[in-house]
């Protein structure tokens, strides 16, 4: 891996150069909300930001997307699959927690019956990660899940703010391609610089979660889920702002003559999420729904995919939950339960 530098003042030139070749996506502010969205030029990008409200999973697994359209001609029905992308994309400014969330979503959409829509977006998108500001947001806790907010793992290029310049780690070939679009902006580091220009270490509260899965599994029947579900209002904010949540619904919109089949986000917190046409609901109250969500994060996801936990410590859910439910507190509560007897 090669390390270069980029003058902060040159960032916009590079991004604008990229925007000429690709669709450029970056964090941009709209009515006080930061989202990753396509931009015409670097001017629309908010460089000083903690993180986006809606996680960049939306770029690969959009809140709503057309899967195909259907047209009825007489008795015949024609289907036309929707193309997920027109052109290659470059995402600027993604944080490492979100990069790691994509590798978790890859388990879901990228293997065992691949999801072509997700996969094509993934393949045709380059990630320019932006190392987290130091100190990070006080509520962040990615290190708890073993994520290094300064790591380049999973991105194509990583920029780290070290004062007047960004340190530039070119990780992949895709990354090299992007840097080569404006080669002159990226001088290498002198030995002195390599020694001096170091990212400031990140200090973040970190909890030992080595027993989290065993402990949560032992709590299946526990009264805890009832008590902790009381403040939950049953909205979908936690799941919609979560970079690893991937529940969705498939819905036809239009008439029986023509229309589109859409895939859109859904939330396991909604009361009708698992409700069957027969009227039966395997998760009838908030207690079961919340338990299902935390089990998914800490037990069933890692168990199914042999992966880490399905949480990257981005803290979006705890910041935005209208019921004031905090996942960090839930983790503490679970860990505080007596250790599991073998």
């Amino acid at each position, binding site marked *: 891996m090669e390390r270069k530098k980029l003058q902060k003042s040159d960032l916009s030139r590079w991004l604008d150069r990229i925007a000429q070749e690709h669709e450029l996506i970056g964090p941009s502010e709209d009515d006080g909300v930061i989202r990753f969205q396509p931009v015409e030029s670097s001017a629309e990008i908010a460089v000083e930001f903690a993180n986006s409200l809606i996680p960049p999973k939306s770029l690969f697994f959009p809140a709503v997307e057309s899967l195909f359209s259907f047209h009825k001609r007489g*008795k015949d029905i024609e289907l036309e699959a929707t193309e997920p992308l027109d052109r290659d994309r470059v995402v600027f400014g993604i944080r490492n927690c979100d990069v790691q969330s994509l590798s978790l979503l890859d388990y879901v959409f990228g293997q065992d019956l691949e999801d072509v829509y997700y996969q094509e977006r993934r393949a045709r998108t380059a990630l320019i990660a932006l190392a987290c500001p130091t100190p990070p947001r006080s509520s962040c806790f990615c290190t708890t899940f073993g994520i290094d907010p300064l790591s380049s793992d999973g991105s194509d290029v990583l920029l780290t703010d070290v004062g007047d310049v960004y340190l530039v780690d070119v990780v992949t070939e895709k990354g090299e391609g992007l840097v080569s679009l404006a080669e002159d902006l990226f001088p290498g580091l002198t030995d002195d610089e390599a020694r001096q220009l170091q990212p400031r270490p990140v200090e973040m509260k970190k909890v030992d979660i080595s027993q989290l899965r065993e402990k949560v599994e032992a709590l299946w029947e526990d009264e805890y889920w009832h008590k902790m579900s009381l403040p939950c209002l049953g909205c979908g904010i936690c799941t919609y702002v979560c970079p690893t949540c991937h529940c969705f619904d498939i819905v036809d919109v239009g008439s029986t003559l023509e229309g589109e089949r859409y895939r859109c986000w859904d939330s396991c917190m909604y009361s009708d999420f698992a409700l069957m046409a027969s009227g039966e609901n395997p998760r009838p109250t908030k207690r079961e729904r919340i338990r299902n969500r935390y089990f998914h994060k800490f037990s*069933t996801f890692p168990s199914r995919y042999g992966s880490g936990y399905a949480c990257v410590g981005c803290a979006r859910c705890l910041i935005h939950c209208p019921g004031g439910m905090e996942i960090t507190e839930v983790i503490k509560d679970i860990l505080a339960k007596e250790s599991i007897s073998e």
Partner: protein
Amino acid sequence: MSDNIYLPWIATITEVRPETADTSTFVVTFDDPQLRESFTYLPGQFAELSNFGVGECPIGIASSPTWAGSLEFCVRAVGTVTNAIHDLDVGDKLGVRGPLGNSWPIEEIEGKDLLFIGGGIGLPPLRSLIHYVLDNRERYGAVEIIYGARSPQDLVYKQELKQWEEQPDVDLYVTVDAGDGTWDGPVGFVPPFLREINPTPENKVAFTCGPPIMIKLVVEALEEMGYADANIVTTLEMKMKCGVGKCGRCNIGDRYVCRDGPVFSFDQLRRIPGALEA
């Protein structure tokens, strides 16, 4: 299955056979002649049926893979999509996405005696396997079928029941919860009926499908009769949408019913927290 896991095949309804007041069998044939040849599935698998503009719903394939050319689906009108499918006629088109899910363990049960216990609309998923077994008769042992419905009118596949009744290599027992003037057979619920028949567990695998309460009591009875959990096999019902283990609805524990099921043996279910709560 298409490369695009969300894209259905187009099929034409070639026959609609009313089974009960709210249930009909739909026979469908793929429009693509090549697909008609190449489409394969296993007994117990299901497909997502589309009525475009209304939506998609998972329905078990009720026909046997040993039959060429067409698929059968037994659809009960309970929700939006199933009601809309009931509005369709011969010649109308359906979307079929599949085959999905796992299947009955057709290899593991070779050489064994088989006991099928169905209730109401729970017979169709078993029917696929029953026909598969009967069409591969030499690979399997004795076949016993116990079937019950609320009333004589609620029995599905009345023609086939008659046929199995007469078939020497099938033992068929049919009961109804409440009889009427047309019924001179046994009356009563399936679980006590099963206890009465008391089929021995030796070298036998039991398959059961039906309303949750029936399954629960049937399993209790089977266990008392000495059937091992591993030899009791059922299908689970959960809300499904994507059918491919992604949309997050139908999990029990870390298993997705649509992907890892719908067929599970009871020893599998006992290891999954919450699986037997219903």
